[in-house]
Every structure is written in structure tokens, then in C-alpha cells.
């Protein structure tokens, strides 16, 4: 999953080196509108629904945090949401 998330991040912001950043938001790699795009891409790629309350900077500060967010998000299967 980490590799796929790196690909998405590079696609959203090709000019930044996400592999060396310690905090994507603090380092200015992702602004709130990039986060919106990222959420949409993650939801589509991993078939999840990310809660609005989870869309906070801390959850997008590193690939590990993004992975954790995806893993605890609601899985969407055939249009039916499952916990």
C-alpha cells in the first residue's frame, strides 16, 4: 500500500520528494486542496470512504499515517458500506 500511496502523492505534487520529507503538511508539500485531491484518489484506489472527521493535517503528514487512515476507513464494496 505504501508504494501505491507514494505514486499517488508524486502524481499530485511531482516537484516534491515525499520520500525525504518528515511531515508533508509542515513542509508545505500538501495544502488543503491537495488533501482534497488525495482523499478522492485514496477513496477511489482503495475502495474506502474516509470520514470528514478524519480529514485533518496529522493524518496526511506521512505515508505511514495515510496508510493507517486508509486501513481504518470504511470499506466500500459493491455500493454497500461495511465497517
Amino acid at each position, binding site marked *: 500500500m505504501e508504494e501505491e500511496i507514494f505514486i499517488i502523492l508524486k502524481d499530485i505534487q*511531482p516537484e516534491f520528494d515525499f520520500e525525504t520529507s518528515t511531515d508533508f503538511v509542515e513542509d508545505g508539500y500538501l*495544502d488543503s*486542496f491537495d488533501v482534497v*485531491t488525495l482523499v478522492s484518489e485514496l477513496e477511489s484506489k482503495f475502495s474506502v470512504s474516509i*470520514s*470528514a472527521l478524519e*480529514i485533518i493535517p496529522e493524518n496526511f503528514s506521512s505515508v505511514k499515517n495515510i496508510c493507517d487512515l486508509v486501513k481504518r476507513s470504511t470499506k466500500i464494496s459493491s455500493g454497500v458500506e461495511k465497517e
Partner: protein
Amino acid sequence: MKATIRGVRIRGICAAVPKETHKFENEIKDFPFPEKSSIRLGRVMGFREHRIADAATTPCDLASYILNYLFRQGWAQKDRLKGLLVVAQMADHPVPGNSKVIHGQLGLSQETYCADMYENCTGFISGLYMAAAQVAAGCMDEIALVVTDGGACHANKLDRNTYPLCGDAAGVALICKSDSLEDAMHFVFRNDGSRREALLVPAGGCRMPATAETAKPERDEMGNFRSLNDMHMDGTAVFQFVMESVPPLVKEACAYAGIENKQVQYHLTHQPNRFMLEKLADLMEVPREILFNNVVENFGNSSSATIPVNIAFNLGKRLLTEKPLVCLSAFGAGLSLAAAILHLGNMDFCELIEHPGNGCILPD
């Protein structure tokens, strides 16, 4: 603050948007970002097209055009219009207020009461509360609530975070007395001025007058350009405020009105962008079909005018013969929140019209 006003109803709603359509696909080249990135963001946010008034058309022109349309249709009588309450964050002039400009443009009676309210995105609900209170108090049988606004003049064309979502529009709601017990409006308002910097135009007021210096655009760390005269938006702070505050506000409004949340047939919200509204609907456990999110992609976010545009665009014909229980809600600069529960419908008119441009206040 909570309040209930009884014996008052909305007799009709008409909204107007400029005829001129600006396509996001044509604006992409102006933004300092790769085209692919802008297209992807536009798809999520609902950036497709928006209506921006030409330079000759002002907020008052849009409003006067609607009122004149109502007079010509016979839905309102010029000589019987006793009150005009105009809500806006933009003004034709610093002095006099918009209501006096509209009064003069339309040649209204000198007996007509005119007042102005400065409001942002919660303006329609705040104005509805004030207008309904005046009618309920017996001050007048009917009052025209006018909201007229737009974000275009506050957004820098090189700021992809604000310009694609803004739009110009106006709306008029006629508020009148009612004998029906069903006609009650339940309002809840909340404000948090400590968070006012999350949505701010720093210059142009008394605290920082606009100068040549404040008009100079500067590039932010992500690449957008804006000057101190332009809208500054902390997108993260606004998003969190809305998600944390609006669901409990709506619950509180429903409880205050004595209804269950699921009894609300339509959630007619302010329209900031599609992504935020989809997430809000999911969080409130409300079907996306009854919380419309299509105003930004068709017209743009026109601040206080989005609710009448939303109503007229999405429910126009239906509200001529039906009267569903609705929840109006709005949120924005301040930061502020407002909600109202009411039965809305069986109106004499509910229509969205286009303003032809060039400042025209007379329909064809």
C-alpha cells in the same frame, strides 16, 4: 441564539445569475499549476463553470432586475412593497447603502422602509430571521428580503483555491403573514469570531485601507497568487469548522423545532464546494440526494445568495405545489453558522432567471 417566529411564510423566491458563463477548462491555463492537477481538483470540488457578472453589472443591478421581473410578472406590486431588506457583503457604493440604490433604480414609493445588513455566507438565514421578525411584529404585511453577492471581486484570478469556486448571484424572497399554524420558522445561530482569520479579506476596510501596496499580488508557498485585497482562506480550518459544527447545529435546530432529524425532507445548505457537501451529507447520515451539492459546478459560490439559487435551481417547480419540511443551513466567514427549520412551498413563484449583463435592470 435560538428563536421561533410564527405566522410568517415565504410567498415566493426568485434568484438571478449573470448570463455570462465562465468555463473552468478555459481558466486552467491561468493557474500556476499543471493542467492535469487542476482538472483532477476540479472534478472533486465541482469546478465546471461559474457565473461572473460583467464589469457594468453590480450586486444592486442583479437585485433590481429580479424585483422588476416580479413586478412585471404581477407577483409583486411596486406600490404595495412596504419593506426592502438587503443583505450583502458587497456594496455598489460606500454610501448610500444598497437598499437605497435599489429603491432609486426601481422608483419605489417613498413610504417603503429600506434597510441594509452586512452579512456573509449565513446572510440568507440571518436576513430571513430579521424580515420574518418584522412581519410577525406587525410592522408590515410583506417585506422583500434581498440577498445579492458574489465572491468574484474578492478572489484573485491566479488563486486556484478561491477563484474557480466563486460566482455572482442575487435572490429575492417575499416574506408575508400567514394564518396557517404550519407556518413557523425555527432559527439557530452560532458565531465564533475568534476564528475570523480563517476567511478574511485583510485590506479594504478601516483596519487596513486598500492602497497600491495592498493590491500587489504575492505568491504563496503552494504557488497561488493573492494580494491583501483578496480573500485569504485557511481551507483546513474552514473544513474542520464545518464538519465539527454543522451536524450538531442541525441536530439542535431539529430538536428545537420538535422534530426528528429524519423528518427533514430537504437540507438546503449554503454551497461552498461539492466535496465539502458530500462529506457533510455522509457525516450527517443524510442521503446525498436531499442535500444538493450542484450549485458550485453550475453557478459558483455566491455567498449569501447560494441558498435561494439552490432552492430555485433544484426545487423550483416542486415548491409551487408542494410544501416539504426543510432545513436551511449556512456557514462561513466569521466564522458563523445558521440553521432554520420551516415548511417551504406552495409558493406563488420559485424561479431562477438570467441577468443579461451590461447593468440592465429591465427584463426583455
